[in-house]
């Protein structure tokens, strides 16, 4: 009998993998390599010239105070939002673990920020932070907690805070779902043993549940870091990097210099600059995830 394609595992495997592989190579691999190559050139938008200039673009951006500010902002926004996300997601997961009326509806609402397109959500947030109509300001004012006025997107510190809030809001539903799954994987008997052993809520949370959750939380944080550090939309729509470039992050700056300013070489250098840092963060977090796995390797 003739062998069909389904019988030939080598060929079948390659055939099934090919589309995904082609997608990754063409839409991720090629642009990535291209960006690295461009970052060593003086290429400009609208021209096909390619002049190798070595590390020139990198030395230029490193000397640029706006770039340094952007780098610092990227770090602040990423770390700030992820700390917020861990706290919120752990708390929300505890709430969602309990049985209550309307839990399904609440879970649906919780997931909405994750499902809404970034740009739409960011536009909604510009209204929440609007200099005249800010619902936060009016609420605080009516509650008698605010004297004066907060210009959310007009002052550097407040604008960064606003960006952190939106980034945390965007990632936290996803993190909550991951933490919930992690909580569900903790054996019920271990939690009950802790109850019988006399551990109260906080001791159970910090001495039993969180250590056991660490691998899952590490994965959630990894996703959060990558999504936040590489996000263009939120900052672009909320502040556009302003006022006066004080809220620029690397993706917005790369877009501004490389696409709007047509300096592809510098834009690419700014965009690529983050890659080594993200790789290190990813390795560290994945190591945490593996090392502390229940039943995994050594600790201490």
């Amino acid at each position, binding site marked *: 009998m003739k062998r069909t394609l389904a019988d030939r595992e080598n060929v079948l495997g390659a055939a099934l993998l090919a589309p995904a592989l082609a997608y990754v190579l063409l839409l991720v691999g090629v642009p990535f390599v291209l960006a690295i190559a461009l970052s060593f050139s003086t290429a400009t938008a609208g021209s096909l010239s390619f002049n190798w200039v070595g590390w020139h673009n990198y030395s230029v951006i490193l000397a640029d105070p706006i770039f340094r500010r952007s780098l610092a902002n990227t770090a602040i926004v990423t770390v700030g939002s992820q700390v917020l996300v861990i706290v919120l997601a752990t708390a929300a997961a505890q709430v969602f673990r309990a049985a209550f009326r309307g839990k399904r509806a609440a879970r649906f609402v919780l997931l909405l920020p994750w499902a809404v397109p970034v740009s739409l959500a960011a536009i909604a947030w510009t209204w929440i932070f609007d200099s005249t109509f800010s619902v936060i300001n009016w609420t605080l004012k009516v509650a008698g907690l605010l004297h004066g006025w907060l210009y959310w997107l007009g002052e550097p510190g407040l604008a960064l805070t606003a960006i952190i809030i939106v980034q945390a809001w965007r990632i936290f539903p996803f993190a909550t779902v991951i933490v919930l799954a992690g909580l569900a994987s903790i054996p019920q008997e271990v939690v009950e043993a802790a109850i019988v*052993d006399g551990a109260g809520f906080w001791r159970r949370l910090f001495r039993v549940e969180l*250590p056991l959750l660490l691998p899952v939380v590490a994965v959630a944080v990894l996703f959060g870091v990558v999504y936040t550090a590489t996000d263009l939309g939120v900052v672009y729509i909320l502040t556009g990097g302003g006022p006066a470039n004080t809220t620029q992050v690397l993706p917005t700056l790369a877009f501004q210099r490389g696409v709007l300013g047509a300096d592809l070489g510098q834009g690419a250098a700014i965009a690529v600059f983050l890659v080594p840092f993200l790789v290190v963060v990813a390795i560290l977090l994945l190591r945490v995830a593996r090392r502390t796995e229940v039943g995994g390797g050594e*600790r201490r």
Partner: protein
Amino acid sequence: MASVEIRNLRKQFGELHAVDGVNLSVREGELLVLLGPSGCGKTTLLRMIAGLEHPTSGEIYIGTTRVDGDVPPRARGIAMVFQSYALYPHRTVFGNIAFPLEAAGDPRATIAQKVRWAADMFGITRYLDRYPRQLSGGERQRVALCRALVRDPQVFLLDEPLANLDAKLRNTARDELKRFQRQVQRTVVYVTHDQVEAMGLGDRIVVMDRGKVRQVGTPQEVYEDPVDTFVATFLGQPPMNLVDLQDALLGFRPEHFLPVAHFGANEALRNFPLSVRRVEYLGSDRYVYGNVAGAGATVIAKLPAMVATEITEGSEMEFAVPERALCYFDAVTGARQRR
């Protein structure tokens, strides 16, 4: 040391009556076994004593304190060993045993001292720096017992602590458990579905079925003097034979059912002609499966290796049971009849 008193305890999960009006006294210092098939409510009962489940109604006293209301597990003076041992996987053996002491706020020096004392008692001192996953099943079980012991509880609650061990280890572990209990002299409530464990360990056994207590007694009492057909057929391997006598059920243990020739001449016997269907040779015993004339039901005879009579499959043989070993049960309710 404390007694445990349970009065008219009920637990309902929706329509299911998991524990259905249980009355029970656990005496100070005794090892009481809750025995029954899965789903009989024994674990639910234990969890209510521990405070992990709230009773639907009824009362629980540990010592003289009523605990069924809002007394949390940590305030009940109990320690529990779970079937899976429920060790904390991210903590060393030391960290596991120390956990309840840390929760109680003991100073560090005291904790270290108590942990060493408990670890010594179970011979696991050299594993103190290891993680649970690096231990064998038997070692994990000892760590779990250590963690329970170190709190110096009034009552130990053990939920099938041997079920996860392989058969070979179970005998040694049973022996160790019994020694441990004699040494610490604490009240122990022990849940199992394994009758061998129950008979071997229990000072008294509580046989449960469908949320109700069927019988409470010493291993000898529940085995030799069952109150109904459930207890009679749940205990014993193979279970008690039941022969329908129209007006009643006649019960007798397979080990009392032997060829007539093996009884003394002046023993009062009840004879049964047995048509032998099959003989199982099991080394130390032979099981003879057959039918008793007139009754129709399959009965089993358990002949020890000492009984050398040749038994041929398909033959008709005269078997007998001593009159003193016969039990009568009501044909409808299954309750024991005293005659």
